[in-house]
């Protein structure tokens, strides 16, 4: 630790801290442009000049590490003169754009000039003209005249994300920021450069001219688009969400977002949004719809009892909504109502094993068990990459049916067959610890079976057992992996073993906390009971069952069989004609609530805008329903937080006990259909993000592509599975393994859950063309 004095105050900071950070700790502001803690020092803009005693000239506070006994002045005539000079230089060619500039009112150049700048510049020459309002992508505009050349954008994409798509072009006064090779900046983290740009040089096309800092409201909130649950700030103006920004949380989160979260807020005004209630496809007043639902409830309850009612809640709701639902089900609907959460995979992770993002910061080994965080949980991927950049020794494994490595985060690969991951991991562990009872039980059925890469499996097992702090990311596809993780945790004993589940509806843990059974088994039971005719009224809230459920056939059968299906949510679901009653629901930002992310961390989502049309929050819907049923019900008070906002759910319970793994079956067929989450495909519709949605959804290995006559630009592929034929668009991609057809979950054109995961045969091209 080092002691130094800044403006007469003494502060103690760790060695290697920069002066600006030490000053920040004291609450002393030193103006900065180019420096960012996550990006490291650069010293490009000279805005942070400070005076250090015994140093002959002013120094840049962002590149000068503190030293014992240093005496720093951030005020005084010398510093003020320095800052004035820098600002005068920065403004030489800066346009007088503030009135039409989207950064106006929250611009560091405005603020610093106002606070530290000269009253007027001395340059009378004409200003240089450069590119203005030019798109660097469909989502972001650049105004080179406003740029202060701090290089934050260039460095963020190039160094931090590892996708160099912006660069400095030209020399001296001619230097500008420009896209590399004039290609669009389409990194999925590109939106962060808008937040990073200290001036109005990089602005959001969607937010263009929409609001000003004084006529908008900013609400702290959480992104609803994937299980990562990044903290965001939602900007609303005149009852519309107009912008989403990252919300840094000191010590925890830099405030990075992926473009899905930053630009995907426009789903609230999507044309397909459900704005009024419908009975059998006809628009009816909301009151009539509630009365209709009350009648259904009454009839079903009188004839078959409350156990004939099933409620499924999905990813569009808050934990409070789920709590109200459960309470309502128990106290109004009656005993025995079945509740379940909609699922995208069959796996479940006990909270006891659940890790946090802070675990990544101390991990010495990271193992991806089927998860591709880049696609399924983008900002989690950034966190992993940051960890690897800090510690190149970090042991990294990618275990999956396809390569999970990317140039920006290389991994040691272990290829497993479909449905063979748990077996492979358990097999490897058993080979290292043959005397362990739990492992013996797990692998009992694997007698004589060998993974595809036995050497790799053993090496992976060594990492799993020997690393000090192990972080695993799990895709949740093989439910029996849960038992393997339980045994692994027990075997590792005191050493940290933390799992991050990258699956599930975004608020899965919130629903669980509210008391809704969160395992696949609960949903399966409910649907099976429906198929058996025990459940007569199925009420689905905020879940697109037929689009996301891993067992499509079961859900389809259940919806076919059930007497009355009722839907509440934001968008008409897949197979919407099977629901006799649609109720428009209030969604994210339209009602206050609490969401839990994959860490099991609770954060509040603010109410930023009123729900559109006749959409209403679950709470008010339930109150109305209770009144229609003539049963009094007051929404109970519930505080989901144990401590402060941002706290974790309690890690209770024991790791799962070992049980015999199913023996992997050999697969036949031309291509194995495999579904994976991709944030830009599944989930809410977004007009803003249309250009980012891949036009060719499927991916096959280039060799397969050649074999099936798919050119480099991709094309259509006909496949047959369970006797049904499908045509999907595919592209050759190195991300697919030979013999695999990777499809994103939740796409209507290629509904992978409906096609069904498993071997499919390819319909020869000639036949496809003839059709």
């Amino acid at each position, binding site marked *: 630790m080092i002691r130094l004095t800044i403006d007469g105050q003494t502060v103690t900071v760790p060695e290697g801290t920069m002066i600006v950070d030490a000053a920040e700790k004291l609450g002393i502001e030193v103006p900065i442009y180019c420096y960012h803690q996550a990006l490291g020092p650069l010293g490009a803009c000279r805005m942070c000049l400070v005076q250090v005693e015994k140093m002959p000239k002013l120094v840049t506070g962002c590149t000068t590490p503190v030293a014992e006994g240093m005496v720093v002045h951030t005020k005084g005539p010398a510093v003020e003169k320095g800052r004035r000079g820098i600002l005068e230089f920065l403004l030489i060619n800066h346009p007088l754009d503030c*009135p039409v500039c989207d950064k106006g009112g929250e611009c560091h150049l405005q603020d610093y000039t106002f606070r530290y700048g000269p009253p007027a510049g001395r340059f009378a020459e004409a200003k240089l003209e450069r590119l203005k309002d030019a798109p660097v992508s469909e989502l972001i505009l650049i105004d080179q005249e406003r740029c202060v050349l701090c290089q934050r954008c260039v460095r963020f994409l190039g160094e931090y994300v590892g996708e160099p798509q912006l660069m400095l072009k030209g020399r001296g006064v001619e230097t500008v920021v420009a896209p590399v090779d004039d290609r669009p900046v389409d990194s999925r983290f590109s939106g962060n450069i808008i937040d990073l740009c200290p001036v109005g040089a990089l602005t959001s096309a969607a937010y*263009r001219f929409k609001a*000003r800092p004084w006529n908008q409201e900013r609400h702290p909130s959480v992104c609803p688009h994937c299980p990562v649950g990044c903290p965001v700030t939602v900007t609303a103006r*005149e009852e519309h969400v107009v912008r989403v920004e990252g919300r840094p949380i000191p010590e925890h989160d830099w405030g990075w977002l992926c473009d899905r979260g930053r630009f995907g807020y426009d789903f609230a005004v999507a044309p397909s949004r459900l704005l009024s209630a419908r009975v059998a496809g006809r628009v009816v007043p909301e009151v009539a719809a509630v009365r209709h639902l009350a009648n259904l409830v009454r009839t079903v309850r009188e004839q078959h009892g409350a156990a004939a009612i099933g409620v499924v809640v999905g990813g569009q709701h808050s934990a409070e909504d789920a709590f109200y639902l459960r309470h309502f089900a128990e106290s109004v609907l009656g005993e025995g109502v079945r509740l379940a959460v909609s699922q995208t995979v069959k796996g479940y992770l006990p909270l006891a094993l659940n890790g946090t993002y802070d675990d990544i910061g101390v991990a010495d080994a990271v193992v991806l068990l089927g998860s591709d965080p880049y696609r399924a949980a983008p900002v989690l991927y950034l966190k992993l990459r940051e960890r690897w950049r800090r510690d190149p020794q970090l042991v990294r494994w990618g275990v999956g049916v396809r390569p999970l490595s990317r140039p920006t985060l290389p991994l040691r690969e272990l290829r497993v067959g479909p449905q063979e991951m748990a077996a492979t991991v358990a097999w490897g562990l058993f080979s290292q610890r043959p005397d362990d009872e739990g492992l013996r039980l797990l692998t009992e059925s694997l007698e004589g079976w060998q993974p595809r890469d036995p050497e790799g499996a053993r090496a992976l097992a060594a990492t799993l057992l020997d690393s000090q702090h192990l972080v695993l990311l799990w895709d949740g596809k093989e439910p029996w992996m849960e038992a393997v993780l339980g045994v692994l945790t027990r075997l590792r004993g005191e050493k940290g073993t933390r799992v991050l589940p990258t699956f599930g509806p975004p608020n899965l843990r919130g629903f669980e906390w509210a008391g809704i059974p969160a395992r696949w088994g609960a949903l399966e039971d409910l649907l099976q009971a429906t198929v058996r005719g025990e459940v007569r009224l199925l009420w689905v809230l905020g879940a697109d069952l037929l689009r996301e459920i891993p067992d499509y056939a079961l859900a389809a059968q259940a919806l076919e069989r059930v007497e009355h299906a009722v839907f509440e949510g934001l968008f008409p679901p897949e197979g919407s004609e099977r629901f006799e009653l649609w109720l428009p629901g209030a969604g994210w930002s339209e009602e206050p609530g609490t969401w839990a992310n994959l860490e099991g961390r609770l954060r509040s989502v603010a109410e930023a805008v009123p729900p559109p049309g006749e959409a209403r929050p679950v709470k008010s819907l339930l109150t109305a329903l209770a009144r229609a049923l003539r049963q009094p019900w007051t929404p109970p008070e519930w505080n989901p937080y144990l401590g402060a906002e941002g706290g974790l759910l309690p890690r209770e319970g024991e790791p799962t006990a070992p049980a015999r793994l199913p023996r992997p079956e050999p697969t036949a067929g031309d291509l194995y259909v495999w579904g994976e989450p991709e944030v830009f495909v599944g989930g809410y519709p977004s007009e803003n993000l249309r250009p980012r949605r891949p036009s060719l959804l499927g991916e096959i290995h280039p060799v397969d592509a050649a074999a099936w006559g798919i050119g480099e630009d991709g094309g259509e592929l006909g496949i047959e599975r369970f006797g049904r034929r499908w045509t999907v668009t595919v592209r050759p991609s190195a991300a697919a393994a030979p013999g695999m057809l990777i499809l994103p979950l939740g796409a209507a054109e290629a509904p992978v859950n409906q096609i069904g995961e498993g071997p499919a045969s390819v319909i020869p091209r000639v036949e496809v063309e003839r059709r």
Partner: protein
Amino acid sequence: MFKTVKALAKGLGTTLRALTEPRDTIAYPEKRREYAPRFRGKHMLARDEDGHELCVGCGLCEAVCPANAIRVVAAEAEPGKNISWTDRYSVDYEVDLIRCIFCGMCEEACPTNAVRLTPFNELAAYSRLDMIADKEELLHPPVRK
């Protein structure tokens, strides 16, 4: 008796004298008063010589207004169809003349000199809504007779 007559005469005298004195009131609306050149009345939005609106919808008037009387909504003009002299313009510009205290700060804050307070001060309406001047109204300022 005499006293009464005297009082009456005095009163009449005062009245007769006042009849010849110059008047303080004017015959409004036939006649109107001269105002100071910088009198602040109802707002207007100005255009430049080419007929382009000066207002770019920056919202500074909205920010500065102590009475919260202004609402500005900006938008981007379609390429080649500029409404103001640049591609940003105000789609909505409203002044609530009931709230306005005619301080003139909006005029002062405007970087393009688009919003100006005219001497027009004949503000009356039968409903509150009519007292909210919209953009159309402000672009066509009434002339004071």
